């Protein structure tokens, strides 16, 4: 994937007074350090003025640089905030960074340029204690309000054992409970207008319609939604903090749990960044195996989504049918990986094992089984008049709005933008396959469903091609960083023996550098922004998940609809709370 570097020149000519510092990263994304005072201006230029603009703020996050050793050529910085923009016209990204100094620094808020920066900046504040000037509502987002300290700072303990014995006296427990009481004025919401008193309805964190521990506080006029305040973080497990104490290899099973319906697709997203960082070439067979399993997981995810979505609008039966099919998909995954939901089966440099004997029969059976089932769902769900009445025209947003809010994946494609990184920036050998990218037109709940239904058919096509053209050869790279390394030459020469010993005992050591490769996962675009400081584990691992962005847009797209519509909207977005909270 080649990114467009002409933008660097464009920036330098436009802002000739400013001093940009260029940084090379392993992922090949143009990376520029910008003085923090001018970041809003530069972002505004990139979004609105430059030819072929960068319209989407794809990612925003922070890095605690205080303990980092390898920062050659980078400006002095205690904390760094980075912005990753995506251009659809150029099919290219740009990463901007600002250097902040001091223990609890302040950065200008970019929410005026990009609306979706709101939650990202809140997260950076929550995790690092960086304040953002001009942010409309800078509150903690993932951690509970009573939390002390900012977890992703290097001095914050990562394990409970480092924190002293846990105690919960009664007054503390009451205090922590009281934090959850919803006070509309804290969120800038009115309690009433001249003509109506609003009702505030607390939906979740335990509610059958939210698909997990999500809390939404609805401001209602009758049953009409005036505004929503999402309260996330109930599923937050500190994935990014954990990454800093695990080795590159042992972090892999954690990625399965980020989007717990996507299984090995998470592994792929993590490994794409990591393998770029380590410069590891993957053998063809491993690539095709990876693609095949990812597509099986895509179908698996969409089946779960279809069943639960139908149930959200009151149709009870489809979920039982789709779970039968899901079981068929799982039988392939189980036979190949030995696991069901969280295989953690991909490895740095390949996969954990070769395909088992007889895998062709399993896959063939699945390929024969699915098409008639999909036809049935088309009739039973998609063709149902009540289902259409509930979903057509509900939860509308157009391409511009989707881009403004950082929507990716099927939800973006349902608005009519044909943007699938599997085609646009082929990774893991996706360019070798023939498949179409289904798109919708209206960007409503129904179109999102149509797109996913068609995606299942396309995934079947890809799996069929994998089945027919599975290349021979090794399933693992011969690169020394491959974990666990290939053993056949271990006892032959000392070089391989040492590498093997080190890789198995403390894991591979990645060269210092930065890499964040955008990967089309099932729910949208995911990327793991990995920073290696030349050690056995990540110095920083920032996970950009699609569900986080989708969740942020829920209030915007649900306003003026009813509670019943909200359930359809939540169902159609296909988010996973673990993916939102990480």
């Amino acid at each position, binding site marked *: 994937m080649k990114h467009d570097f002409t933008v660097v020149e464009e920036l330098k000519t436009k802002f000739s007074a400013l001093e940009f510092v260029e940084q090379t990263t392993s992922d090949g994304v143009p990376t520029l350090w910008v003085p923090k005072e001018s970041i809003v201006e530069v972002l505004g230029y990139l979004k609105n003025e430059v030819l072929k603009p960068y319209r989407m703020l794809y990612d925003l996050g922070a890095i605690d640089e205080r303990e980092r050793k390898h920062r050659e050529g980078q400006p002095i910085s205690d904390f760094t905030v980075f912005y990753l923009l995506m251009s659809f016209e150029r099919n290219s990204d740009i990463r901007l960074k600002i250097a902040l100094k001091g223990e609890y620094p302040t950065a200008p808020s970019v929410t005026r340029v990009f609306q979706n920066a709101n939650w990202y900046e809140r997260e950076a504040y929550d995790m690092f204690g960086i304040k953002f000037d001009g942010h409309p509502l800078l509150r903690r987002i993932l951690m509970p309000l009573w939390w002390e300290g900012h977890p992703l700072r290097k001095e914050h303990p990562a394990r409970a054992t480092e924190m002293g014995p846990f105690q919960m006296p009664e007054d503390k427990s009451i205090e922590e409970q009281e934090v959850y009481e919803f006070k509309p004025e804290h969120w800038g919401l009115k309690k009433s207008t001249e003509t109506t008193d609003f*009702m505030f*309805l*607390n939906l979740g964190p335990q*509610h*059958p*319609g939210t698909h997990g521990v999500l809390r939404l506080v609805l401001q209602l006029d009758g*049953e009409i939604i005036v505004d929503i305040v999402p309260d996330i973080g109930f599923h937050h497990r500190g994935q990014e903090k954990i990454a800093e104490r695990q080795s590159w290899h042992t972090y892999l099973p954690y990625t399965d749990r980020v989007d717990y319906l996507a299984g090995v697709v998470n592994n792929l997203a993590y490994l794409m960044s990591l393998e770029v960082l380590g410069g590891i070439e993957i053998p063809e067979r491993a690539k095709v195996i990876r693609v095949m399993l990812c597509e099986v997981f895509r179908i698996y995810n969409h089946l779960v989504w279809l069943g639960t979505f*139908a*149930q*959200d*609008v*009151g*149709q*009870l*039966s489809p979920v*039982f*049918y789709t779970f*039968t099919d899901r079981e068929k998909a799982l039988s392939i995954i189980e036979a190949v990986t030995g696991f069901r939901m969280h295989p953690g089966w991909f490895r740095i440099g390949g996969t954990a094992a070769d395909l088992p004997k007889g895998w062709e029969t399993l896959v063939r059976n699945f390929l024969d089984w699915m098409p008639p089932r999909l036809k049935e769902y088309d009739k*039973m769900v998609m063709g*149902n008049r*009540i*289902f259409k*009445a*509930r979903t057509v025209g509900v939860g509308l947003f157009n391409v511009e709005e989707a881009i403004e809010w950082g929507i990716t994946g099927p939800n973006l494609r349902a608005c009519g933008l044909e943007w699938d990184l599997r085609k646009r920036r082929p990774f893991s050998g996706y360019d070798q396959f023939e498949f179409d990218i289904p798109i919708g037109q209206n960007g409503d709940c129904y179109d999102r469903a149509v797109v996913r239904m068609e995606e299942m058919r396309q995934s079947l096509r890809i799996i069929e091609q994998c089945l027919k053209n599975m290349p021979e050869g090794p399933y693992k790279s011969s690169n020394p960083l491959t974990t666990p390394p290939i053993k056949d030459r271990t006892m032959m020469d000392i070089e391989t023996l040492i590498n093997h010993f080190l890789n198995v005992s403390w894991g591979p050591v990645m060269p210092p550098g930065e890499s964040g490769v955008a990967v089309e996962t099932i729910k949208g675009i995911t990327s793991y922004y990995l920073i290696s400081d030349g050690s056995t584990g990540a110095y920083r691992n920032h996970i950009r998940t699609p569900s986080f962005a989708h969740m942020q847009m829920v209030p915007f797209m649900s306003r003026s609809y*009813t*509670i*019943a*519509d*909200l*359930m359809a909207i939540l169902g159609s977005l296909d988010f996973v709370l673990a993916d939102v909270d990480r």
Partner: protein
Amino acid sequence: MNEVVRAVIIALGILIVMMTIAASLIWVERRALALWQDRYGPNRVGPFGLAQVLADMVKIFFKEDWIPKFADRKVFVVAPTIIIMTVLMSFAIIPYTREITLVDLNIGLLFFLGMSSLGVYSVVLGGWASNNKYSLLGTLRAAAQMVSYEVFMGLSLMGIVMITGSFSLVDIVEAQRKVWFFIPQIIGFFIFTVAGIAETHRLPFDLPEAESELISGFHSEYSGMKFGMFFVGEYLGITLISGMIVTLFFGGWLGPAFLPPVVWFLLKTFVFILFFVLLRASLPRPRYDQLMSYGWKFLLPLSLLNLIVTGAVLLFMK
């Protein structure tokens, strides 16, 4: 005195049979749903899982019967009994056969409508007394839905009343000796069935409960036997509506002579009960405003049209 004893025996018989049917419907529904959803359903307790009903009953009787502190205690307790009472009262006027009829009221049909309109109180009061926002939303939906659909239910039956010239259910069944009323009154049958589903708030019209939106709506706060009463009340409601459909449109106990009349009645009723379950297995739930506009903008004109056409045809035939 003989008359009184006979009446008491019939009343007790109907009560026991109906309660048993309602209870075993729990099993029927779960098994039938399972059949349509590629699963087994309860099949462990007793033959075919039949004793599941018993197990469920035992469980529900022994469950903690909790009344929330914030609830309006008196109303909270009274609410679930209303649904059981009104539905059981309606069973009194259904003619199971010519002989097994508790009361042949000359305003039988009106009595049924009256009782079903009183049934609304159960839902409305239960939701209000729970003092819970979800229950309140469910209650608001229920009140609007049931009051509206009662109108269409009443209007849909007037065609039959015009044809038979009587509100007595026995007369209505007798009038179907030549042809069952679902043929001349096909529209009335359709509207009555739809309104019947709405009255019993079963899926697809279960908006007052809507577990994916309102988490059981009006009975969110109910537990133990009070919840059980709503539950049994719902099944009694299904049985009642099915029985009424059979009485009004499918000739009640009438049928070829190789089976006794009461068997015919029960068989036909059972078919409609299964129809109710099938609906639940297959259809999604419309939105609240769609339900209301469907009623007022489609069913109301349709039922009025049915009335006018029936009247015109009757006058013409004279």
